[in-house]
């Protein structure tokens, strides 16, 4: 973590401590659930880890599952940095996938150019989708972006389903799916069956985002606005413009993830393309503390939970859904960092002693004057 990040000096430890603790707590609760339902908790967790990292193929599968999570997670992190909440990345992912698929089968271009064209189309479409409507609505009408992005997510999914079920993107035949993209638009596979060069897209995206967040003037503005919009206004920053940009860039990344999934793994879009990545990405961004490096690591962890969960089911007979429970628990513990402080407050008496004079020094609060 860089010194430019808003983390205390020993932040390398402090910034990692809470996320790691959250993961550990979630694993503990998860193994309690396993034990309560009749499985050996240690064996379960062991099978989970082994399933995710036990051999090179499994590691490849883990990384493969992490690719979309990384990219969408980065997008969600952009909005978090700006003090916004993009809960509709799922729909933006769909929009990106649709645009990439269309460019992938409908246009013919030389190999590398074709791939770039697909990515570009996906980013533009999804960026406009998120930036134009929720972004402008937030910046100029004060409309809550949580709700607008969520609503548009459904609109995007239904729109996508219409396009491939009975709309213009339906491939000939009975199946509700699009035509397959041209070979010139597919990403090379690094490890069979499906670990694609999309990982490079994700890594590059993370590096660019890291630079943007901590080295660029734009990122500086974004982080300032997210932490203190008043001070940002004092420094002459345009809060409204940054809101639109943040949501737009967030959408672009979600769209890029959709494109990477189409070009690297699916090669076509079908009506049950929905993935839940939009929600998991929130967890990824939170666990990664909105730092691109953290997001990459958190995405690998969540990819591991997915892959490991499937292997755990095959090898230890424990249902893979346990991994999803653990994912939810991680988010819960990360969000309720206060739980950890609450536990501290319960069992460390000194905190109580320090609580009182604070209250006495701030009579204004008691009086209700603000």
């Amino acid at each position, binding site marked *: 973590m860089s*010194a430019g990040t808003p983390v205390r000096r020993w932040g390398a430890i402090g910034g990692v401590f809470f996320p790691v603790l959250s993961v550990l707590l979630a694993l503990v609760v998860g193994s309690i659930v396993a034990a309560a339902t009749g499985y050996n908790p240690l064996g379960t967790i062991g099978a989970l880890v082994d399933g995710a990292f036990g051999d090179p193929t499994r590691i490849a599968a883990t990384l493969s599952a992490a690719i979309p999570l990384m990219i969408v997670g980065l997008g969600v992190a952009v909005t978090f940095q700006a003090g916004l909440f993009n809960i509709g990345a799922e729909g933006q992912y769909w929009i990106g996938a649709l645009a990439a698929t269309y460019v992938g089968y409908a246009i013919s271009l030389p190999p590398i150019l074709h791939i770039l064209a697909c990515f570009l189309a996906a980013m533009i479409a999804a960026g406009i989708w998120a930036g134009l409507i929720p972004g402008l609505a937030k910046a100029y009408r004060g409309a809550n972006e949580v709700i607008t992005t969520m609503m548009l997510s459904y609109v995007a999914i239904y729109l996508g389903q219409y396009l491939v079920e009975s709309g213009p993107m339906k491939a000939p035949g009975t199946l509700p799916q699009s035509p397959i993209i041209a070979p010139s638009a597919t990403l090379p596979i690094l490890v069979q069956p499906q670990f694609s060069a999309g990982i490079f897209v994700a890594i590059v995206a993370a590096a660019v985002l890291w630079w943007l967040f901590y080295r660029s*003037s734009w990122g500086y503005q974004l982080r300032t606005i997210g932490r203190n919009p008043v*001070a940002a206004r*004092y420094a002459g920053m345009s809060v409204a413009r940054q809101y639109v940009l943040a949501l737009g860039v967030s959408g672009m990344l979600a769209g890029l993830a959709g494109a990477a999934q189409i070009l690297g793994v699916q090669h076509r879009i079908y009506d049950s393309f929905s993935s839940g990545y939009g929600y998991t990405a929130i967890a990824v961004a939170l666990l990664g503390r909105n730092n691109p490096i953290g997001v990459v690591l958190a995405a690998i962890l969540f990819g591991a939970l997915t892959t490991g969960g499937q292997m755990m089911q095959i090898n230890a007979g424990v249902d893979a859904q346990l991994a999803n429970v653990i994912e939810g628990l991680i988010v819960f513990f990360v969000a309720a960092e206060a739980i950890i402080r609450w536990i501290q407050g319960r069992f460390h008496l000194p905190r109580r002693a320090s609580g009182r004079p604070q209250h006495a020094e701030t*009579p204004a609060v008691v009086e209700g*004057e603000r």
Partner: protein
Amino acid sequence: MNVLELKGITKRFPGVLANDHVSFELAEGEVHAILGENGAGKSTLMNVLYGLYEPDEGEIVLNGTPVRLSGPRDAIAHGIGMVHQHFMLIGAMTVTENIILGDEPTPVWYHRREAEERIRSLSEQYHLGVDPHARIESLPVGLQQRVEILKAFYRQAHILILDEPTAALTPQESEELFSIIRHLTQQGISVIFISHKLDEVLQIADRVTVMRRGVAEATLSARDATPQQLANLMVGRDVVLRVEKPPQEAGEVLLSVRHLQVAGRDGVERVHDVSFNVRAGEIFGIAGVEGNGQFELAEALAGVLPVSGGQLLLAGKAITSMSALERARAGIGYIPEDRSTEGLISDFSITDNFLLKEWQNPRFFGPLGLRRSVAEAYALEEMEAFDVRPRDPRLPAGHLSGGNQQKVILAREVSRSPQLLIAAQPTRGLDVGAIEFVHQQLLRLREAGRAVLLISLELDEILTLSDRIGVLYGGRLVAVVPGETATREQLGGYMTGATPAQEEGVVP
């Protein structure tokens, strides 16, 4: 007969003696005003009376019986009602709903019509003229205040505390409030009227208690008191310790404010037709009691609040239509009133805080992005110059003490070598050492031939540092006096409206 007696009330906070053996009496049907500057201890005394604070010493006697008040509920049960300066009202609800909340006439069903009827008759009894089914947000401030008063009477108050009740009112609304107060006292209600406006106090009160620095200086009959006498009691006669300040010829005019008008965030005009000049090598102090337009003035000069009329010139160039950032670049430094919410981003590193107004500066943000070593070297250099401790530019600003936070802001603004520095309450909440440091920095700017506009609620600070002092009262600049000869009495008179505004134009 006294309905209330406070005997020797003492209340300490860590490091502050907020109330020092304060005694106070209130007779039936009387309006007893408490007059004092900000921080004189008025609010603490009222919070003791309202049960929010328990006094360290002293006694509260209601109708001849000593009582212990352990919370607002106790105070309300004893017939004490309080109208806060900031109303506790719910905009989306009706008058009736606001009044009965928490003390509904029936336990389960809320019978709207009956409750409204009851509020209507109460309103009539006390001549308040409030429509029980109006929505709060549709009412003007004056009527909202009457809803707060009704809330107290609904709970059978016979002692009413009004905390700075005219602060948010128009002159007309204030007149209406006074006539309401007169009706109330005729019905045996006793009123405690907290204010810093002399003319009002003399107009409405029977008796006046003046507080200063936690002490009740005197209680006078309003009929016998003169405005100047009260003003003197309020600001005190302490000798002002003026700092050693080399005499200096003020140079050219750097800031020229002409007929400035500014509306606050609520749209109400707070600064009316203010004109003054600040010259190079001069500290121009703005004195005034809180809420008389000084912070709107500061924000308008800094470009954060739009100007609704008038003109601003910086070194002869019009800056009226410039944005905050453009003004900063043109040479205005600004130390905002509230460090933590306006001046700093507490979880940013100190270096990042130094960059707040530099996000377009190619010195720090080059084609490859942030030049970290340049930024950190710059931050470190400034931290050394301003003695910010600990000297670690990567530390989050929130981890610094208040004094060091203020030094960071000061360093950031001064390092941009501004022609004009606007310092709003630059020493609020700092310890003695830090205060002295900030003062020295302001004097150094003066020596360097820069202009300083110092806005402070601390009269001592204004008197100590200023070459000239302007006084804001009710959003108008009522006087500009030389700092050297100014006295607390003189300023106190202007600040409280006891002395009428200077006749001739105040633009020197």
